[in-house]
């Protein structure tokens, strides 16, 4: 089983949430919103590239658009294996985080 890193997981989820509008700018915003923490572009490109390399996401370029000074957007979308990977990680969370763990750590936070 190929485990995702935490940042890869967050970005993968962000892409899934963004559906057809996932590209650098929106992914960064989504990730920042989800984690309540300002992500830099440098921080998202690296996992993005690895995800492409592992074939969890696909990259294609859009038509050039004016707000980017005439450049294309690079749109990302989840592949089947990407979805599988998310499913896997979800399964792991379920087994790793037993009720006991959840109880213990949620309490502390409270």
């Amino acid at each position, binding site marked *: 089983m190929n485990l995702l890193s935490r940042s890869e997981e967050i970005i993968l989820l962000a892409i899934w949430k963004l559906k057809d509008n996932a590209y650098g700018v929106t992914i960064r915003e989504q990730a920042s919103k989800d984690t309540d923490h300002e992500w830099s572009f440098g921080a998202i*490109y690296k996992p993005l590239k690895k995800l492409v390399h592992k074939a969890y996401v696909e990259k294609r370029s859009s038509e050039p658009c004016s707000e980017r000074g005439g450049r294309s957007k690079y749109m990302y979308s989840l592949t089947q294996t990407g979805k599988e990977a998310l499913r896997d990680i979800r399964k792991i969370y379920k087994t790793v985080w037993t009720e006991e763990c959840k109880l213990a750590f949620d309490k502390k936070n409270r």
Partner: protein
Amino acid sequence: MNSNKDNHPHLVKIILGLFLDGDDYYQAIGDFEETYRYQVKTKGLAKANLWFWFMFFKSLPGFISNSIYWRGVMFLNYLKIALRNIKRHKGYSFINIAGLAIGLACCILIFLWVWDELSYDRFHEHIHELCRVVRSERSQDGTISRFAGTPRPLGPSFKEAYPEIIEFARFHPYKSERVLLEYKDNKFYEDGFSFADPSFFAVFTFPFIQGDPKTALSEPYAVVITEQTAEKYFGSKDAIGRTLTMKNWGDFTVSGIIKNIPANSHIQFDFISPIGILFERFSWMRGWRMPHFYTYVLLEKISNIHNLNAKIRDHIKGIDPELFKIATLHFALQPVEDIHLRSNYKFDLSGHSEIKSVYVTFFSAIAVFVLIIACINFMNLATARSANRAREIGIRKVSGANRSDIAKQFFGESLLMSLISLGIAIILVALSLPVFNALTGKQLNFTLFSNMNILLGILGIAVITGCLSGLYPSMLLSSFQPASVLKGTLASGSKGFLFRRILVITQFTLSLILIIGTVIIYRQLDYMQSMKLGYDKDYLLYFAKQGGLRGQYDAFKSTLLKNPYILGVTTSSDVPTHTRHLTIIEDWEGKSPEDRILMNYFSVDHDFIETFGIEMVAGRNFSKDFSTDTNEGYVVNEEAVKQMGIKSPIGKRFSLWNYKGHIIGVMKNFHFKSLHDIIEPLIFRIQPQWDRYIFVRVRSAGIADTLKSLESVHHQFNPEYPFEFKFLDEEIEQLYQVEKRMMQTFQSFTGLAIFISCIGLFGLAAFMAEQRTKEIGIRKVLGASVPGVVMLLCKDFTKWILIANVIGWPLAFVVMKMWLQNFSYRIGPGIWQFLMPGIVMLCIALLTVSYHSLKAALANPVDSLRYD
């Protein structure tokens, strides 16, 4: 659109361009720009700018680590592919790596040699401010003779007159007689006894093990010795205060022990004593006319040298106007740094050195040649085999690699090859260094990490080699069009055909120049060795005339002559290999008032001319029948007669200084110096107290017995001195030692260069034959004969080598003509010396190629055509 404000700073694009390329770059720029514009719209320009720079710097570490990570991944892939290629094509890789490794090893060896030559005397602390005073004298006909020696008063007089000179030191290697030193039972002849001013160790840096450099030479009979000398006499380095006894001189007290003198010092000695003893003993060395010393001066600043040179030029004018007039004597400063490689003075410590700088240039050229040849192999094979890798390049390009990626890949591969070769080369150098040292007569060390400069130099050579040989293949291979490559329309091996041809021609031109060089050097040396010297040098041995031999020479001689195996005995002041006596002659009958001639003079005895077998041209030899011959007779050589310009010389008045006399005979010119020099005027006179050497001519038969009896007679007359002798012909051979070594080294490197060219050619031929397998198959099916096919394959190579010949000849001619200029007696470069190497090279090349040609020609066409 207010475009300027909306565009984020241009600088960022440039910086991002450093880390990102292709899609990544456009994506980043686009994302940045989009967000920036959004920020400008919502929060205003100032905040947007602030955010922008904040975001940029925050992203930077991510960009950098990202780029390093992916480059690393790619690099590992390139490395894997490169190593797979090396493994898969073993023959090809072997040729490449072996060629490069041998080339690099040659280069490193020569580099070490050149480094050593250039490092002479650089170990002195004040080397940049050190100069030697040299003198020049102009003779009547305007020729200027330059000498390394200077007179005794020069040093003090200079120091007094010119404040720019901080310190001076005179040095005199004592060679007038053989020194016999004794400590208890240890008794040795020594050649390395020298004298110097007490300031010697302030001027030069010779590190002391024991003793104080400041005071070591201040006591009259003090002596400073080297480490190895201390071991030799005293068996330990702890020798301060012990006494060495020098025969006829007295006791010397050891006052200091210095480290052994480095081989790369032009001053060499084993013992050094204060020069005052010498002045006391040889008071005739006093005046300005006796240039028996080497005077070194330490300048305040080397930048003074030009001014000072102008001032000292006519120094003698104010001191001895008469001497200035008769000798036109000038002085000049020569930086000590230049002594080893760039000086050409008579009576120099290490002989003529100009020729050595020619050799430094020659050797450097060989190193470069060999390296270029090895690089060419690499380029040739890489481009020739480009077809085999075309598919890989096509796939890479289709998957998104751009031209620079491919170029980088192949560039990197050639660097990898050159680094692997460097590793092998270093092992080769370590293994072959003893042989190389024996060949060149040097004591080079090769320890990689002791000298940063050498390490960097070697690495530099390897990297340059890698770059040079990778440049063309990487450019060519990266230019392939993926579409045509993958369709298979790339005519295999056709790319870069012209370039490859040029490379092979260059390679063979360089090899040819080296072969011609070797042949001409060999012929020149052979010529010099077989040249008639004008006397019979064989079976002639000589030894020092000292101790009891001085007083009882006549008795010694007659005892020897009773032995039927001894053909002749004579004595003289000079050995015809190392002549030391040169003076200005100003008085002869029939001269015009202004005439002065620089002449060599020997003192000889009555039998010298006969024993040496020198021919007389006119007049007669010295004879016992004429008692006046002893004091007034002069025998001169033809050259002297020519320069004096007298018609019938016999009986003419002639004097050497105040010794008046007559010319009684003229002898045929003979070579009394090395063949680098032309024959100079020479006069013989009988003056027994000057004689230093005894020559004995022996029969070739029973030489061992003769030597034994010679030794016993020597012992009988001269019990205090051990019997040590030399054969003259061996000494003469020593004169050409430099050339001989040079030739042997040259030969070895030429051989290697040819070998490297040939393995390259072998690889290329293999490749070309393989490329044409099908063509040959079809030709054979249609009825071509085996010789016809071989001819077909060899035709190209023959053509290339012929072109190489045409280019190589004039180049070699010019270079060798330059080298031959160093010899006064030289061969003229003949047509055979050019034609022969060309033919030899053609044969070698065809032999190399023929293996693959024959293999291709003999192959069964059924096999080669089966798959189509």
